[in-house]
């Protein structure tokens, strides 16, 4: 039975001012509608241009649940194509990374396509003379994703024609990407070190919400970060605090630390924690790095770049950026109760290798399937996914520090423990779901 398809009011009614209906997390039909509308009408992160440095390089990924290919075309632009042969539907590539040369060749019937997707040749072409191939879907080649935008190396795409343009959709929120890129003395990043992949048996939005949930670290991570502090307390006096302890410890900072850290919301569901300081603020200096930044930007600008310590920036719907540690996470929806988390790390071009090493330590300690901090988080997500089955209460509360008349689609700052950013996301969810229903 279809409860939500074609019923925009029913979808809208899932979101209240301070509450969200459980079907947003557990209902298969809502999930399918998210893939069609939310992931169709918004700009979704595809990949970084450094993943396809040379002509013919490709990278296979998904937008929502749609398989796509990011490819470097002959004119040096990065294109995004649907990963499907227009003939019988065969997926063209199955390796995540590769180089296809001048053209893609379908492994089934050897139809070939240029790296912009256009049909190049088919064997025994004469047999199609009366089939009006040029007027058909098949003759159009591999469908390109229509709307693609490369912002400072970060490639985003929008599947549908409806929805705002790139600049309108992201607006000021792009400042978090700017800050991460500017941390390279030459203003360039490169995906490096390998991608950690972590399977979560929960809804993708639980992860997105958790990025600006500052009331959980000192509770959920007492087990990991709290234990790290206790163990380190037994270290001999004067011992140099290891990078790992520097990374673990702030996760159990007191509420006061998180309240003062601040949260900023932006239009269209974007927002970030760490307006004033964050868990990344007190890392040890990396020898030689600041001097390089000063040489590149001048002292004032270098300081301004490095004093920005945004913790998690959520790019709605499913990209999370951590500028100060040069890391992004992508929450890839698989089904209502299954999400793949991919964590990519970046090398800051022309900066010391120790920065990449620290990024990788962070990623390993926080975002790996073997990470104890990750175990804390996934445990509570999975418990929530189970607990939402309880019929007695069908609503999730996101009411912390709500004030009646709270505005939507504005830029504003608030106390770091507000759930405003979660409400901001759900209002954007409702807006982009309804846009094409």
């Amino acid at each position, binding site marked *: 039975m279809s409860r939500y398809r074609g019923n925009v009011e029913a979808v809208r009614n899932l979101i209240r001012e301070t509450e969200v209906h459980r079907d947003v997390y557990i209902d298969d039909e809502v999930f399918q509608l998210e893939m069609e509308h939310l992931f169709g009408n918004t700009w979704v992160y595809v990949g970084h241009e450094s993943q396809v440095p040379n002509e013919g390089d490709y990278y296979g990924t998904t937008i929502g649940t749609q398989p796509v290919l990011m490819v470097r075309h002959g004119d040096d632009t990065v294109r995004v194509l649907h990963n499907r042969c227009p003939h019988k539907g065969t997926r063209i590539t199955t390796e995540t990374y590769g180089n296809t040369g001048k053209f893609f060749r379908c492994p089934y019937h050897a139809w070939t396509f240029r790296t912009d997707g256009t049909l190049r040749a088919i064997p025994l072409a004469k047999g199609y003379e009366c089939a009006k191939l040029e007027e058909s879907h098949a003759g159009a080649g591999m469908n390109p994703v229509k709307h693609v935008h490369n912002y400072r190396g970060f490639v985003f795409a929008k599947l549908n024609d409806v929805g705002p343009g790139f600049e309108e959709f992201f607006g000021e929120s792009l400042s978090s990407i700017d800050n991460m890129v500017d941390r390279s003395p030459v203003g360039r990043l490169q995906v*490096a*070190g*390998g*991608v*950690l*992949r*972590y*399977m*979560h*048996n929960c809804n993708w939005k639980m992860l997105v919400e958790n990025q600006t949930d500052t009331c959980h670290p000192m509770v*959920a991570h*007492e*087990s*990991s970060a*709290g*234990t*790290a502090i*206790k*163990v*380190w307390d037994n*270290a001999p006096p004067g011992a140099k605090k*290891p990078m*790992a*302890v520097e990374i*673990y410890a702030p996760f159990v900072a007191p509420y006061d630390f998180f309240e003062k850290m601040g949260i900023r919301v932006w239009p269209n569901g974007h927002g970030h924690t760490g307006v004033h300081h964050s868990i990344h603020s007190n890392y040890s200096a990396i020898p030689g790095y600041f001097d390089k930044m000063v040489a590149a930007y001048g002292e004032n600008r270098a300081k301004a770049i490095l004093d920005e310590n945004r913790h998690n920036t959520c790019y709605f719907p499913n990209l999370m950026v951590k500028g100060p540690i040069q890391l992004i996470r992508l929450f890839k929806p698989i089904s209502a109760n299954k999400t*793949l988390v991919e964590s990519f*790390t970046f090398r800051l071009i022309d900066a010391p*290798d120790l920065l*990449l*090493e620290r990024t*990788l330590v962070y*990623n*390993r*300690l926080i975002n*790996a*399937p*073997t990470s*104890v901090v*990750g*175990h*804390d988080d*996934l*445990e*509570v997500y999975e*418990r929530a996914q189970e607990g939402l089955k309880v019929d007695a209460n069908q609503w999730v509360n996101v009411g912390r520090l709500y004030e009646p008349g709270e505005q939507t689609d504005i830029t504003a700052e608030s106390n770091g423990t507000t759930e405003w950013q979660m409400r901001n996301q759900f209002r954007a969810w409702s807006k982009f779901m309804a846009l094409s229903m």
Partner: protein
Amino acid sequence: MAAPTNQELIDFVVREARLIDEHRLDEWLELFADDGIYWMPLEWGQTDPKLTASLMYEDKLLLTIRIERLKGNRTFSQKPRSRCHHVLQVPQVDKRDEPANEYLTYTPMHYVETRHDEQQLYAAWARHTLTVVDGKLKIKLKRVDLVNCDAAFGNIQLFM
């Protein structure tokens, strides 16, 4: 102790796995040299633990944090606790370097980790770099290469 015999090296590796299976993790940690490392690469044939991501690359401090965490009353991901089980092939002694006090073993294995109704099977190759410290064999490096090292996993909470 004089140079360990091959049988002593093999017995050590077998006992190491058993200590994990029996949750005797404090005793297990004592098997590591002070500068010992536990490494689980992310990449097939990985050579670089620093500038390439790993699933684990941990010194005794980080291993201690894991073990202490498993004992914690507020370690919610261990309510109920995970259990694990190793099936080892007979460890092979790949290299004996007595002057350098270094011995390498190679042990293909299956490792099962279970919690609630879920049971995960992992296949791996364990490589131990062992050394004699104060008359006792110690681990300088335990490297665990998963066959599917680059797959997307759920929680892996214990030690392989």
